[in-house]
């Protein structure tokens, strides 16, 4: 059998925006991310692979697996001047040629509505549509796109 080449991605660079520092996510982010991710409003539109009720070690397990696998660039979303406190995650990965997302993100509810990810300010929470979380937890978006029918 041919063996697959090592396709692990390098660590992502630190990216700065007007208000944010996106820095590589790390295991030490687990406590602040766990607190923010264990929230029905954050989780309810994510792919059903995300367990609910959310386990106490959910984020830590996710971070551990992601940092080992390195099949995507994963950043912790932090505020400039406070880059120890991970408010959420955003990740991108190469196109696998299938329908899985190339980008996922989530942000703790304490920072919603400020255009940080950014999102449309006018939509009500009930108008949010589903997006899938990709294959792992904590890597998808609570988007406010109105639902559409086929």
């Amino acid at each position, binding site marked *: 059998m*041919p063996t*697959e*080449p090592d*396709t692990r991605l390098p660590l992502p660079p630190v990216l700065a925006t007007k208000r944010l520092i996106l820095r590589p996510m790390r295991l030490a982010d687990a406590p602040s991310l766990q607190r923010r991710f264990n929230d029905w409003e954050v*989780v*309810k*539109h*994510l*792919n*059903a692979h*995300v367990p*609910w009720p959310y386990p106490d070690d959910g984020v830590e397990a996710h971070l551990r697996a992601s940092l080992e696998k390195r099949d995507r660039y994963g950043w912790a979303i932090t505020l400039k001047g406070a880059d120890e406190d991970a408010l959420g995650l955003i990740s991108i990965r*190469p*196109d*696998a*040629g*299938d*329908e899985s997302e190339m980008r996922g993100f989530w942000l703790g509810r304490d920072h919603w509505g400020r255009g940080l*990810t*950014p*999102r*449309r300010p006018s939509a009500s929470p009930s108008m949010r*549509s*589903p*997006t*899938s979380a990709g294959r792992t937890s904590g890597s998808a*978006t609570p*988007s*406010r*796109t109105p*639902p*559409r*029918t*086929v």
Partner: protein
Amino acid sequence: MKEKQGARIITHVPVKTVSGETTKVVWLLPREDWLARHPDVTAAPLARPDKHAPFPERLRMPATPVLESERLVLRPLRQGDAPAIQRGFDDWEVVKHLNAKVPWPYPADGAATHLREALAEIAARTKCLWAITLKGGDDELIGVIDLWADDGLTRTQRGFWLARPYWGSGLMTEAAERVTEFAFAEIGWPHLWLSNAEANRGSHRVKVKQGAREIARIPSVYVSGPGDRVIWLLTREDWLARRG
């Protein structure tokens, strides 16, 4: 957020979320659209697959099967096809809109060289390559169509040519439709990336007839010189809906 970024809705598919079953909206944000909205950004050249890396197993194709349509039999290319390829392909009208890698004037051993590579690709299952032949005919090749998996970067998965005596009768579209059915209904791919030289109206029409969506135009170089390459996406849902 996707609307803010100018992404396009490509399709809708069922998904299970934490709170239940619903519909996932699939968006595409083409690099060209995004760059057009950010003229201040200096962009690196388009990324290309690493030619020296081992062929990724996830892109491995099935063995090239025999496919039939109303008027055609598509069969795997084979050793004896070189003379028919040379006859049909050594034609400026056939070749002028193809990638500039095709040599012109076409060398006398052009078909033999091309066929050797094509047979290696069939054997390695990096591509499916079919001879287009007429049903009830003498099994002679009148054109070629091929298909390969989406590598996530090159945005093209199919190529074809048809000898000039057979133009204008919808045979190329018929072959493309059968290969598309193979991709969507038999392999199960979610989409096909397609492309053609903007000046190649025949190839362009096949995409329009198949219901592909135009995604971008980028500069390229063809046998006849520089020209725009039109990039299309044909989704499985669009194609199935059109076919009924």
